[in-house]
Each structure stands twice: as structure tokens, then as C-alpha cells.
């Protein structure tokens, strides 16, 4: 309240602000945010990637809602996507934005995750920020997998079928898990119905919850400085105010990201293949989207070394262990200082990038 007194002349605007302030404690929030600062150093540009990821997520929500107006899960799924793409005015544009923002969101998320990793932003007290971030990555991959089936064309059908076959090979829970996801023994309209529910209700609710926690934690702890910056004496470190100095740059980056999104959408609007036909053979050279390519190649390699269910089980087990190791990095590198543990974390990070890049490239070359 004290702050609202300094708003200047008693105009309608200031009276309205006071009215809102009294009920919503705007001044308290503004006071809190006005004190927030962001470290300024030569690696500051990595801070933008979280915001860029969020921008693409917002585009996902908006375009997803618009697609919902015409999309029909079930037997009409393919026809409704064909109508959206080829007949509905600017339907191709909305679908293109949804398709490309999903891909770009994953790309931004990977960049954000690795930048956070190398800045050691998972260290005390930011461990929960890291864990919620890893969860957000998994949910986003879940969004990608469940959304891919929805057009129900040839490619999406076979990609989902192969994906669920992999899940089925897990011991004990595998068959049950795959059956629940499929709604039977094969990928059918029932599977679309299930994936649709997952894609538009279950996952959005979860992502909103976890994202809120993630953002609140960032507000609480602020942006972490990289170790090279932390090593400097306090008076040598530079900071800028979050409002408006950093936020303005953040908005600029969001707008540039949007511009890039629109550019790729108009240059490469997604098409639609032939309708899914379970009786037809899988198209030649079928493969998952780029973000699943490394896992796909890993499974292939293990399948060659150890054919059969055992090979699949071990490879999935190894991937799960790798993910677990990735998640517990804050517990390994927990001293807050340079040393053996910090070095181990650096090696884990570098090795992860090398493995992801090499396996993805290998997978594409092997098609």
C-alpha cells in the first residue's frame, strides 16, 4: 500500500491500481520482483533458453487448443487432420506451428538443460530445480510420443507400433503397460483415444503443476552463476535488474524464437502421409523423430549384440540407469567446489553430449 501512494496524481488509472493492489497485493509482488537481479557475464546468453522453451510451450498450448476444435479422435482422426491440413483456411499454418514448436521446444529444452548443467546450476540449493527440469524433459518427450500418433497416418502408426513393441519387451510390467496404452493387442482407434486423453488432459495437467514449481524455484533462488564467475570477489561480479533490463532482452529472444518458428513453418509445412493401414508392410527406412533417434540406435546396437528380449531388457535397463545418473548429478557434485566430484560431473555432461550426438548421427547414417 505504501508504494501505491507514490503513483502520482489521483487519476482513474491510479485509483484502479489501488483498488487492485488492495485485493491482490500487487505492490508486494512488484517490490519482490523489482529486487530480483540476474548475473551478467560472458555466459549470460545461456539464460535465455529456459524462456525460449517456455515460449514454445505456450505456442503448443494455444495451437493445440485451436487444433482441438477440428480434430476428431477415433476412426475419423486421419480425415480430420487431412481436413485441417488441406481444406481448412490456415489450418496448415496452425498445424505447422504446433508441429514445429514441439520440435523446437525439445531442441531449446536440451540446450537449456545442458547449459544449466555446465553452469552447475543444479548445485545447492537448486537441486529441486534440476529434478523438476528432468521431469519436464520426460513429460515433454511423453507429449511428443503421444502427439505423434494422433494424425494416424502411415508413419505415425508404425512409429507408435514400434515404440510400444519396445515397451512390451520390458519384463513383468511390459506387456500390461503396452496393452493399457494400446487398448488391446494392436494399435487401433482405441489407442488414439488413449493417447489423445494423455496428450490433452493428463500430460498438460502434470506439466503445468511441475512447471509452476520449477518457475517458483527459479524466482526463489534466481539464476546461478557459472563457477568461473563465482570464483570472482563479489565486487567484481556484475548484475542487472530482472525488471526491466533482463526481461526486455528475454522478450526480444522470445520474439526472435517466434520469428524462427514461423519461418520454418512456412518453409516446411508438415504434410500428411497415406492413412494408416495395419495390414500393409512398414514403409522402408521408417525411423523415429530425431529426439528418439539416439535411444533407437542404442536399442538396435544392443539388439545386434544380444538378440531377443534379454537384449532389449538390458538396453532399456542401461538407459534407465543413465537417466538416473543424470538425475542424481546434484548428489554427486554436492560440494559446491572444484574438485574430483565436479570433474566427474563435467565428464558425465560431456560424455552425455558425445553419446547423444554420435548415436543420433549413427542412426541417421544407418537408415
Amino acid at each position, binding site marked *: 500500500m505504501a508504494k501505491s501512494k507514490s503513483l502520482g496524481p489521483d487519476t482513474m488509472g491510479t485509483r484502479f491500481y489501488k483498488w487492485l493492489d488492495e485485493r491482490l497485493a500487487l505492490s508486494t509482488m512488484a517490490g519482490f520482483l523489482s529486487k530480483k537481479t540476474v548475473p551478467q557475464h560472458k555466459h549470460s546468453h545461456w539464460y535465455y533458453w529456459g524462456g525460449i522453451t517456455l515460449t514454445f510451450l505456450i505456442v503448443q498450448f494455444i495451437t493445440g487448443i485451436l487444433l482441438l476444435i477440428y480434430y476428431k479422435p477415433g476412426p475419423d482422426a486421419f480425415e480430420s487432420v487431412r481436413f485441417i491440413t*488441406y*481444406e481448412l483456411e490456415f489450418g496448415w499454418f496452425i498445424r505447422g506451428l504446433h508441429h514445429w514448436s514441439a520440435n523446437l521446444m525439445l531442441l531449446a529444452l536440451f540446450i537449456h538443460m545442458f547449459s544449466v548443467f555446465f553452469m552447475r546450476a543444479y548445485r545447492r540449493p537448486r537441486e529441486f530445480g534440476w529434478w523438476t527440469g528432468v521431469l519436464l524433459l520426460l513429460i515433454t518427450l511423453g507429449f511428443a510420443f503421444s502427439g505423434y500418433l494422433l494424425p494416424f497416418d502411415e508413419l505415425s502408426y508404425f512409429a507408435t507400433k514400434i515404440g510400444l513393441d519396445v515397451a512390451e519387451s520390458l519384463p513383468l510390467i511390459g506387456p500390461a503397460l503396452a496393452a493399457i496404452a494400446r487398448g488391446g493387442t494392436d494399435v487401433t482407434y482405441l489407442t488414439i483415444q488413449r493417447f489423445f486423453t494423455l496428450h490433452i488432459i493428463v500430460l498438460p495437467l502434470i506439466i503445468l503443476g511441475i512447471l509452476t514449481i520449477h518457475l517458483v524455484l527459479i524466482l526463489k533462488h534466481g539464476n546461478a552463476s557459472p563457477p568461473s564467475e563465482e570464483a570472482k570477489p563479489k565486487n567484481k561480479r556484475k548484475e542487472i535488474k530482472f525488471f526491466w*533490463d533482463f526481461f*526486455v532482452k528475454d522478450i526480444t529472444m522470445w520474439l*526472435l524464437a517466434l*520469428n524462427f518458428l514461423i*519461418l520454418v513453418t*512456412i518453409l516446411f*509445412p508438415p504434410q500428411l502421409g497415406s492413412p494408416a493401414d495395419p495390414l500393409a508392410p512398414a514403409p522402408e527406412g521408417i525411423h523415429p523423430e530425431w529426439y528418439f533417434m539416439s535411444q533407437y540406435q542404442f536399442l538396435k546396437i544392443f539388439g545386434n549384440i544380444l538378440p531377443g528380449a534379454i537384449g532389449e531388457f538390458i538396453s532399456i535397463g542401461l538407459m534407465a540407469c543413465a537417466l538416473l545418473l543424470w538425475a542424481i548429478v546434484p548428489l554427486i557434485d554436492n560440494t559446491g567446489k572444484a574438485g574430483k566430484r565436479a570433474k566427474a560431473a563435467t565428464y558425465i555432461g560431456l560424455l552425455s553430449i558425445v553419446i547423444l550426438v554420435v548415436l543420433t548421427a549413427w542412426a541417421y547414417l544407418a537408415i
Partner: protein
Amino acid sequence: MNYPVWVVPVIGSGWVIGIIAIIHILISHFAVGGGIYLAFAERKARKENRKDWLEIIQKHSRFFLYLTIVAGAMTGVAIWFSIALSSPEATSALIHNFVLGWASEWTFFIIEITAIIVYYYTWNRVSAKKHEAVGWIYAISAWMSLFIINGILTFMLDPGKGWLSVAGTGAEPSKFWEAFFNPTYFPSLLMRTLVCITLAGLFAMVTASRINEEKEPKLKEQIVKWSAKWLMPAFALIPVAALWYYLMLPQANKDLFKLGVSTIGQGIFTQLTRNAVFLIFASIILFFIAYVFLWRHPKSVKLSHALLIILLAFSIIGVTEHMREMMRKPYVIGNYMYSNGIRKFDAEKFNSEGYLRNTIWTTEESKTTWHIQDTMTSEESDNLSSPIQPDLYRGELMFRGQCIACHTTNGYRSISKLLKGRDEASIRSIIDMLHEYKEDSPYRKFMPPLVGTKGEVDALIKYLDSLINKIDQ
């Protein structure tokens, strides 16, 4: 086919021009707008006796000189090289029809480069009045070169009825002014001038961003804000200019725009609409960035930001120029010359006499053989010991002459990809459609007719079949 064919694999010759031209357009429009900017900025600084401003303007003129004279001139010459190789017929037509235009353009260009060199090297060496005068000479001559080139570029989209009525008669120069001030001339000139002014403001950010905000915060704020104002005319008037331009377009071009609203289609069917959608969004985004960042927080502008914003402008210019190219389809010079260099009025002649017969790039022996084959009656051909097979060499020549201006075998607009899965009969049906070129053919909207005798068309089909289905003769 009076000239050799330039075969550029993967990207095709069109993109060689495209890449060079987009870079050149960015720099050349800055060369026009930046000249006006320098003249106004110097006048303001001198009027207000701002020595700090003059120092910045001098620095900016050095950056301007290097960029426009070196990169601008080099890419300009490169355009001539690439268009002469890629579209020699069209280049020849433009040279012959606009002798006066080119001569004037080059005159203004010479004045322009002389003036900017004098402008830069006479800072603090001649009186303020003289220096300002040189700045204005540069600004006016640079804009005049735009005034001229705009006439030639817009002519290519729509030469106007007057010029078309004499096209091919040898009396084309008598309609020079009608061709020059064609229907889209003025809206295009307005649009380009606005783009020039916008780029002047954006490129000024490169110099302004280098001012140290801690040592000279006020100066940085003033220069960034003053430069940001240069974006305002475009934001206010470009929608009007674009609408004016659209209204002046020939009906066929307007129809192409409308196609993509309701259908995604394939290839260039909807490319125009898609590009237009991008332009609208990108312009709004540029407006917001300019307002939020440059106008409200001028001191935060760093070199990396300035370059990113210029990159955004670059994408807008690239897409606009791509649109301009696409809009002309199926012509390279509206209603006169098809995009593969064949003049509209020659099509009938090539159908009856043969396309390759009218080229100087095949041997007389081949021409004679082909002519005998084409004029043979069915009775005569039945009596031959072995039936005549359309030869692949002839088909390849047809492909190079009529398709390669827009298509590549395996890269951009790949013919292998476009015809994938088709057998010979299916390739024939599509080629026949292009050859017959009926009024209701969907290809008429963006592809030239396929011209030639039956023997030539057969040879092309054979060649395409061998290319797609990997069969040897």
C-alpha cells in the same frame, strides 16, 4: 537456346542468384537509406553543435563505406555474372530494352560511389557546408539508382499492356516509358524506399551499440532512440504500400495468393501465401522488438542484439524477394518470356519446327537426323529394319533447355523426387499435360508450356524415365 545452359547441381542456378541477390538487396537498400540517414544525422548534429554525435556519425560512415562499397559492389557484380549465366535470354532482353535505363543507373552509381568516398575522406578537411552537400549528393544519387532499378525489376513482373503490344516487333524501345512506369512501379518504389529507411535505422544500431553505456549513457540513449525513429515510417506505411502493390498486381498473381489460404498444396502453389503470412508476423515481431527493446531500453543494446535484429530484417527481405520471384511464375518477364527463357510467341514455332532445331548448341548432323525422324510417316518408320528409339541425349538436351531453370535432377525441386513412383506412362501423362497446356491445367498457373515436336517430347519422357527408374536405353 541461343546460349549455353548453366547446370548447377543440388541448389540449382536460381538459388545461386537468390543467395547473392538477397545479400545484395539487404546491403544496397541500406546503401540508399543509410545515405539519407547520414545526411540528416550530420545536419542535426551540426545544427545542435553536437561534437559527440559527429564523432559517432563519422564512425558510422566508415562502417557504411566498407559495407556498401566492398560487399555491396561485389554482390552487385556477382548478380550480373549469375543472371547472365542462369537466365541469359532474360538478361539480354532487359539489356536491350533498357539501354537508357542501365546507362542512367550506372551514371548514378558512379556518382554514388564517388560521393561516398569523398564524404568519408573529407571529414574535418572541408567546410561543414561542403561536407553536408557531398552527403546530400550521395543520398540523392543513391535513391535515384533505386528509382531506375525499380522500373526494371517491376517491369519483369508486369511489363504493361503498351509494351506487350509491341513485344517481339523490334519496336520495344518506343514504349520505354510505359514499360518503365509499369503498373506496380510506384507502390514498389514506395515500399522499397520505406525498407531503405528502416534498414538505415537498423544498421545504425551496429555503430550505436558500440557506444559504451557506462561512459556515455546519455549519448547512447539519444542515438539509439533517434535511429529507432527511422523504423516508424515503415511501420506506419508499409501495410498501405503493400495493399496498393497487391491491388496493382495482375489478376493471375492475385489468384495465386488466394490459393494458399485454403490449401497447403505442394511446392509453389501456396508458397506465396505462406511467405505473406511470414511477412505479416515477422513485421509485427520486428515492431515489438523495436518498441520494447530499442525504444524503451536503448542503453541495453549490444552489438549481438543489433546483429540479431538485422538478421530478422534479413529474413524479411529474403522472403519478400523470394515472393517477388515466385509471383512472376510461369514467366521471368510477365506475359513475354517464360521462366525457362522461351519467348511466349516462340512456343508455336518450336512446337512445329522443333525446339532443338532452333538452338545453335547441337550439331547439324543431329538436327538433320532428328528432323528426318520427326517428319517420317508411320509407313516409312514401319519399314525400317529396327524401330526408332527416342535417344537419351536428345531428351537430356530438352531437360536442360526447358526444365533446368527451375528444377535439378536430385536437389532443389528435384525432378527425381517430384516424379518418384511414376512409370513411363505416368510420366507421359504429366508431360503431355504440360505440352498441351490447356486453359484449365493446374500447371498453367506456375509452369511454362513444354514446347517441341512429338519426337522431342518422347525423347524427354524417355530421358526422365531413365532418370527416375534408372533404366538405360
